[in-house]
Every structure is written in structure tokens, then in C-alpha cells.
């Protein structure tokens, strides 16, 4: 059962990592609009992409 002593801290560290990553994503506005982005990939853009600037640098 000694393996638990290693595995449980590892799983806790992963949990912490997941929570931090999630909070980071929330802060960056990844969850602001959950409906529009999925539609963006459905149609083809006939018009060449707009000037190669980053869309919304922050």
C-alpha cells in the first residue's frame, strides 16, 4: 500500500494543476460566449482571411 503515499500526492498535484488551468481559462474569457464559436467552423470563408493580425490580443 506504500504506493498510495506517492500516488495520492501526485493526484492532488494534478488536481491543483487542473483547477489552476481552469481558473486561468475563466479569467481569459474563454467561457464568455459558448454558443457562437462552434458555428464559426461550419461555413467556409470565401473571402480571404482579414489582414494577418492576431484576433484580439489582450
Amino acid at each position, binding site marked *: 500500500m506504500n504506493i498510495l503515499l506517492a500516488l495520492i500526492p501526485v493526484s492532488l498535484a494534478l*488536481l491543483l494543476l487542473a483547477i489552476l488551468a481552469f481558473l486561468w481559462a*475563466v479569467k481569459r474569457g474563454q467561457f*464568455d460566449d459558448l*454558443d*457562437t464559436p462552434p*458555428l464559426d467552423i461550419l461555413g467556409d470563408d470565401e473571402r480571404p482571411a482579414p489582414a494577418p493580425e492576431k484576433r484580439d490580443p489582450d
Partner: protein
Amino acid sequence: MNAAVDATCFHCGDALPAHPPTVAIDGAPRPMCCPGCGAAAQWIRDAGLGDYYRLRSDADGARVAADAGDFLSWDRADIQSGHVVSTPQGNEITVVVEGMHCAACAWLIDRALLREPGVLDVGANAVTGRVRLGWDPARTPLSPLLVRLAALGYRPHLAQGEAAERERRRERNRMIARLGVAALGATQAMMFAEALYLDTAREMSVPTRDFFRWITFLVSTPVVFFSGWPFIAGMVNELRHRRPAMDTLVASSVLLAYFASLVETLRGGLHVWFDAAVMFVLFLLAARFLEQMARRQASARLDTLARAQPALAWRITAAGREQVPVVALAVADVVEVGAGAVVPADGELLDAPASFDESLLTGESEPVSRQPGDALYAGSLCRESVARLRVQRTGSDTRLSQLTRAVEKAQAQRPRVARLADAVATRFVTALFVAAVLVFIAWWQVQPERAFEVALAVLVVSCPCALSLAVPAALATAHGTLARMGVLALGADALESLAKADTVLLDKTGTLTLGRPQLVDAHAIDGGDVTPWLDVATALEQGAGHPIAAAFARTGLRSAERVRAFPGEGVAGEVDGRAWRLGRAGFAMQGPDDGALWLGDGTRGVARFTVADTVRPDAAQAVAALRALGLAPRILSGDGADAVAAVAAAVGVAQFQARQTPEDKLAAVRSMQAQGHRVLMLGDGINDAPVLAGADVSMAMADGAPLAHRSADLVLTGASLMRVPQAVALARRSQRIIRQNLGWALAYNLVALPFAAMGWVTPGLAALGMAASSLVVTGNALRLGRIEGHTA
């Protein structure tokens, strides 16, 4: 004309006029309600964005005004200051748009604007109804981009209340963060708890068991105190006001399970319930999140739409005419109002008589004529001729602002519904703790060493999980269903008050009727084809920019020249070289006035048109359905008695009152409330806003005034009135299900309590009962997901 395949406009889902224009989309001719929608649909097709019609979830786009409007004033520096931000690439502005209902709209706006030259960046957000627009001022001014937006039916407004919006977004993000932490933490806590559950034979060594318990404790703590904080804060708040309700119930059961487990961990007891505590936080948080987001999304879109056009007025000074922002107007300034423009401030009419459309303030659909010296009100529309007025009251002193204040006052005085669930919760929590204490005392007398354990079992087994899930689960499902039906619920109490309503008050113009003139009849005097005369009339009306031009919903083939409007009489002009007159019989052909619109050459009439504000096609059906639900319908209108009587007869309502000012309407509501009635008010205009706010529960129409939206509990997003009885039926069903849920949860607790008090309940049994009763309650609530009587 092709035979109409659909009964409604393909683009916006509105009712069709008698002779709808059509646009071919996907190889089939689609009927359009007006030239505006037709033009928008044509543009969308030609731009290769036809996918929009496949992507959108409901059939209702935004109705497109025939004339997109003039946005030139948005290019002025004094208007842009404070709204436009300069970025290294160009300028950026955030506008709020009307009519963006779903993700497909946002998709369309993104695509459409990116095609315009000079546009750098577009971010349309369907949740907040906002569009962030970046453009290069060196390549394009702002106004053509806004015209494109408006031409698609998304009329832009200046975004107001940015601070409130940012706060709302922060709060939503905080809620998402809490939810995420709860989900991640709860799954981990359950994993560790699983190890404890699987040790059925109790072979685990005590140190290992305690190690697992402490790890579970560690993982659950942030879930209970960070994710569960809204409940704990709510409980503190409720207890401070000595009114324990839902939050007290939720927080006490979570804290109970948590601290009971902690105590058991410390004393090495038989069982811990950390997993129950965290799972519970997760479920309740998710239910609350769904319900709140449905409501917030609705209100975020509505309350920013305060018609924030950059308002400009023409001020007459000694030096001539100058255009100034409306806020710069002062008392005693002289202002010129163009035909078709909105009066910017309350004042006194100068020079010549003129007619004004005051429907915004009074609900009266006929224009009223004013003599020099008469009072004019801000917000009314100047018809036909240019007028000058001397400003008497501006800004917050105007009649319009008084109405706005009346709304706030009425809202503050609204009777509150005593909430069933809160009342149950209060008594339950008190009874539970009293019972636990009594059990503890009783066991202390008999068997002191088991007293604590049994008291704990009583608390855990009757932990009101199911009870506190009963209401949120039902509310979350019901709000979701309402939104799918096309009814946005804004107030938290909306569903409950809606279920209790027994009287429905209906406004006439814009609510029971379409609120805009429609051509109901056209025939040629010689009995021949009326189409050529219709073309002439259309050309004249559109040339004059007359308010009833919209009734002639045909794309104009010819154009009229030398068009002159005669106030109160009609329009004169030349089409194809011939002089025509369109208007009252006396004006067009020197005949006796019969209320109809005549086309003639001044002496002889050739065609007769009947233009009227028509009743919504499903109004009578909706009124009948409301009556079947036991609601007594009644019409309150600001319009004249004859017009109201005609509509009342058409929809089948016996009781009606005409010529009602907003104050009269509010007084009528108050007297009905005094008689013990619960009043549902259905309206659309600014004149209805105080009543909407004062009624027990209120609904506003989608195309109504923003002030009406803000004072209503529910807003209909589509044109169909049938959604009103559907929403009432759903509200009643949700109340019934909440009652069933509460009954079931209470019954479970009442049965379990005596067994626990006798010391017969094992920890495993307690956990099983808790989970089963919660599942039953949630499953019952999900039944609200169905839309009854919906034919789509």
C-alpha cells in the same frame, strides 16, 4: 403573387401582409413581410451567407425596418468621444444591437461586417447582445458599417452601463470558477470516498482509513467553502434578517454533512459523508447557475437597450441653425423638428399648427394636431411638416422621464408573493434542529454514550438535501423551457406570480394588434386590376416617407416626383408624368370622407385602400386559451373608444376601458389588487411601463419599448401571442411540481426521522435514502422540460 407556403415572413417570422414580396432562397421563393426583410434576405443570399438560415435555432430573425436609418451623426467627434477607444490598429467601439437572439445572429454579424472594407475586427456576443467593432478610420467612417448592421435588422445603439456589464461578467466568471472547482473537487473527493465505500469487510487498517478520510477532507474543504460560498453567505444574510429560507436550508445541510464527517473523522467514528456534502454543492450550484444565467442573459440584453441613439437636435440661434446634442439643450431654446423626427424636449409649439404622433406616451394610435402655444412632449413624433418649439422642460423633467420615475415607484410598491418553498424551509430547519436536540436529550437520559451518535444520525438522515433540491431543480428546468418557448423570464419571482394570476389586462396597440398599419383591402373603382394603382400609391407614399408607407409593403417599381405632403389630408405628387393625389376622399377626389384612403387625380377617384392596424392573427386564440386557463381578460387602452371596441369584439373580450392614461391604468390595477385579484399585465409601450411594473406579474412584447422591457417580469421574444397561455400553463405546472417535490421530500424526512431517533438507521442506509430521495426530486423536475401545446 405565389401562394404563400408559410404563413409567416421567412426572414423574421412576422405575420405576412396581403401581398407579400418574395425572395428566392435555396431555390424556392420565400415570402417576406416587408421590403426591409426582403432586402436583408437578398443581401444575405448574395453574400453567400445563406447558411445563416440553416444555423439559426428558431425561425425568428429580427424584423428589418424598410429604411435602415441615418447613422451619419455617429461619425461626429463629439458623439464618438467617450465611446470610441483608439487602438494601435484603428478605432474600436462597442455597440448594443437589437434583435441578436441566437448564436447564428452573432455568426452572421461577424461575417457580414468583416466583408466591409476597413473593418479590422468584429466580436459579436450573442449572450450580451454586444458587438465590439474595430475599424480603420483612414479607410472608412463608422456610419456605413452601422448602416450595414441596421440593414440586416440589428439596429445598433450606444452601449450604456459598461460598468454594470463588466460587473455582470465578473460575477458570471466567478460563478463559473466556483462551478469548475466544485466539479473537479467533487469528483476527486468521491474517488477517495469510493475507496472507503469499497472496504465493505472493514479490512482497511485504521491509519489507512484515517489517511483517506483526511485526504477527502482536504479536497472537500475548498468545494464547501469556495464553491459553496454563495449558499453560506446567503444563509448568514437570511439569519441576520431572521428569515431563514432556501439558502439556510442548503447551507445547513452542506455544513451539517461536512462537520458531522469532520467530527466522525476526529473521533474515528463509523462513517463519513464528505462525498455527500460536495456532490450536493455541485448539483445545487449547477442548478442555480443554469437558472440565473437564463435570467441574466435575458436582462443583460434588455436593460442596456435604452434607445441610446446619439440624440441630436437642431437649435435655432441668431446666427442660424446648428446641430447640438440633446443634452446641451436649455430651457427657452428654440428647436426645429423635422417631419418624421422625434421631439427632443417638452416645449411649446410655435408658428403653425402641426400634427404629432404621441403613441409612445399615450398609446393612442391616431396622430393629434396641436395649435401654436400647445404643449408638446419629448418622445412624440412630428408628422408631415417641420415644426418649431420653445423648450420648456429638458432631460429628467420631461413627461417621458416622469413616466420612467413612475415605473421605479410602482416597482418598489409591488406586492411580494409569499414564497411557498421559503415558508416550508423556515419551518423545516427549525423543526429539524429542535428534533435533534430533543433526541439528544432523550438518549442522554437513557444511554449517554450513544446520544451524540444518534443525534448525528437524525441530522444526517433528515438532512434536507431533497428538500433543498426540490425548488432549484424545478426552477432551472422551467426557465430553460421558457427560453426555448421564446419567453425570457427576468424576475426571480416571475414564474410563481404568473402561476397565481387570475386576471389578465391587455393593452391594445402593439399588443393585441400589430402596432403598425397594414393594407387590409385594395380595390380599383372600375373593378379592374388594382396592381397598377397600388404601384402608384406605393411610389407616392414612399416618396413622402409617410408613416403609413410601411402598409404598402411592395418593393417600389416606380418613383414619384414633386411629392408634397398635406398635413391631415394626404400626399400629392407625379408618377410617370401624371399628377396624383393620395389621401382622404375629400382631398383625392372631392368626395365625402369615409375613413378610407383614396387614390385620385383631385376630381376623380381610381382606387380605394383600407389601411388599419390589424389584430394579431393569433390574438383571439390566445385570449380564448387564457380564458380556458381561468384568467379573466380585460382590455385597457389609451386609444379611443371605437377603436378599442372593435378590437375587443375581434378578440372576444367583453370588458374594456378606453382613453386610459398610464396613471389611470395603474389605478385600475391597484383597485383590482385591492379586490384580491392577481393581475397579469401584457403591454408593449412606454405608456404601459408603470402598469407593467405595478402589476403582480407582467409581460412585454419583443418589439415594445425598452422601458416596457425593463419594467416587465417576462418578455416575449417572438410575435406569437400563444406563448402567453403556454407560459402561464408552464408556470402552473412548475408550481405543481415544486409542491410535489416538497411533499415528497418532507414525507421522506418524516418517515426517516423516527427510525433515526430510535437509533435504527445505519450510516449506509442513511446515504442511500439521501441519494434516492434527491434523485426522485430531480427526475420529477425534469418533466418540466416538455413544452405542452407547442406546435412547431
